[in-house]
């Protein structure tokens, strides 16, 4: 019986070997073609506006206003970049420096506050922990406009409107829940034994955190920092409302002001956009590995 089935199987196999292989090959190739088609479609959807932005930034005004639409500049030129870099209305250098200062300080402040708190959340059980965790979650649901109104009146009374201090505090605090959850995830992944070993060697808890845990969690800390930096760099609403002095203005608001200050010239505006986007994209690319998993670990608990 078994011999019969075996021989039957062998027979069918040899008879169908080649067509069967071809079918499998076709199936595989078909799957790849379909995947490339679909993935290409998604990439196209994602990138079309960005390609269009970059293309416009290299296009001369004359050809921008032509009925001919193509994704490569008809007559590539750097005129828009030169225009935007030399235009006193754009003030790109100053606002970039402003953004850099504000984002850096906000990020450092945020990390300093959150690293210790995240460590406490990771290693200790203490009364009030749940309350703290609840507040971190509720914080997400508070609408930005409501916070902004309360914040704005408070800052105005402290004479901190038109001042970076208020903005830095807002950015640093706005990132607290995410940073704490995220860093807690990193600290959780570091075995407690390592610190206990350090404490055996005479460190106290804080020294252990500083000398042992933080260095081990450094890639995570850097990812969190980059995420906070890019978040502050890209933020619009708070900067728009709190900073009205053009000399102190940050990049995202500056570009909108620049656009409103004249008849809309899309070439320079898009060139400005490209200049603003590049640092954010580069930083994000460096940290992208950690960002999604880190964010999700904060919420899937």
């Amino acid at each position: 019986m078994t011999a019969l089935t075996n021989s039957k199987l062998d027979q069918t196999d040899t008879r169908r070997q080649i067509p069967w292989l071809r079918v499998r090959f076709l199936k595989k190739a078909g799957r790849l073609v379909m995947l490339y088609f679909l993935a290409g479609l998604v990439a196209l959807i994602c990138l079309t506006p960005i390609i269009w932005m970059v293309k416009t930034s290299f296009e001369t005004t004359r050809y921008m206003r032509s009925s001919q639409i193509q994704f490569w500049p008809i007559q590539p030129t750097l005129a828009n970049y030169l225009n935007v870099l030399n235009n006193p209305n754009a003030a790109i250098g100053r606002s970039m420096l402003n953004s850099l200062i504000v984002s850096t300080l906000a990020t450092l402040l945020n990390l300093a506050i959150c690293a210790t708190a995240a460590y406490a959340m990771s290693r200790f059980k203490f009364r009030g922990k749940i309350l703290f965790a609840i507040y971190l979650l509720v914080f997400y649901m508070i609408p930005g406009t409501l916070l902004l109104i309360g914040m704005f009146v408070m800052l105005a009374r402290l004479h901190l409107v038109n001042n970076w201090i208020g903005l830095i505090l807002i950015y640093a605090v706005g990132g607290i829940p995410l940073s704490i959850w995220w860093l807690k995830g990193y600290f959780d992944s570091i075995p407690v034994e390592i610190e206990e070993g350090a404490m055996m060697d005479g460190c106290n808890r804080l020294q252990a955190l500083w000398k042992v845990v933080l260095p081990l969690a450094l890639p995570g800390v850097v990812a969190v920092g980059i995420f906070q930096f890019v978040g502050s760099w890209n933020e619009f609403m708070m900067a728009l409302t709190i900073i009205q002095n053009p000399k102190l203005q940050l990049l995202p608001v500056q570009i909108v002001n620049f656009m409103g200050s004249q008849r809309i010239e899309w070439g320079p505006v898009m060139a400005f956009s490209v200049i603003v986007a590049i640092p954010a994209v580069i930083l994000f690319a460096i940290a992208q590995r950690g960002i999604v998993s880190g964010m999700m670990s904060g919420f899937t608990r």
Partner: protein
Amino acid sequence: MKILLSVPGSDKSSRFLERFKKHSLPYFLIVPSVIFLILFSLYPFISGIWYSFTSIGWIKDTAKFVWLSNYSQILIGNIGISQWFKLAVVQTIYWTGIGVAGMFFMAMATALILNEKFPGRFLFRTAVLIPIAMPTVILALTWQWMYDPFYGIVNYYLFKLGLIHNANTIWVGHPNSSIWPLIVVSVWRGFPFMALMLLSGMQGIPTELYEAAKVDGANVFQRFWHITLTQMRTTIVITLILNIIWTWNSFDIIMVMAASWGQIAYKALTLPLLAWVEAFRWDHLGRGAAISVMSMLVILALLFWNARRELRSINE
């Protein structure tokens, strides 16, 4: 911990000190963040709610308690702010409901594609990542340029495909323009990140499950329905909730495309935008706060059940 207790000379007081030290350390560690949170989030939050009950118009005004006057001005009547408020409620629901649904559809498709293994996958992953990093403001500006009535590519392609009859259709930047073109931008802006969130959940599903289902004769759709969706339940719920909150409260796209220069397109404003315009454009801080509070109540009601679920698992 044994070391602490065997410290030489551990009389009663120093032991108390040790215990205090041991138990107070977590509090010292969270104190900075608590102080910052109280001063710069809890206080503005509560004072914002308080201002919604006061007559405050601009920062120099004294905040006089006026009961529910702001709320009644917004809710009762059919002209001015109450008209815009009713419009904005409907628009916020469209903006969030249709926006997040669109994002979810696109994100799920993207995640399913990127979850497959094929050569060159990382290139496509990068393509999806690039828009995520960019400031929303400049993406909104780019879309405004693409929507340009005369030279924009949106009109160009839609007209070429015969989908619109007027080659110079005005989509945005007009006082009467609607929220639909902005929802398209919001979906485009939101779906890549959502796709990454879904993808991270998808990668946690063991492949054995799919193989077992294949052996049992389940087709692609059955496998998607019974394995992918079931296994990703938590990820999907969290992703949806976060995106609902973000989309509901999102500001930049509408601000840039409907409220930043020229006249304000009220037919394209959502509640957060209406609150901002009321507070900072028309100097009615109190009323703006009232609109924000009502906006928040809706989103809180929507999300209450999740908070409860979340709390149960926090202190594990």
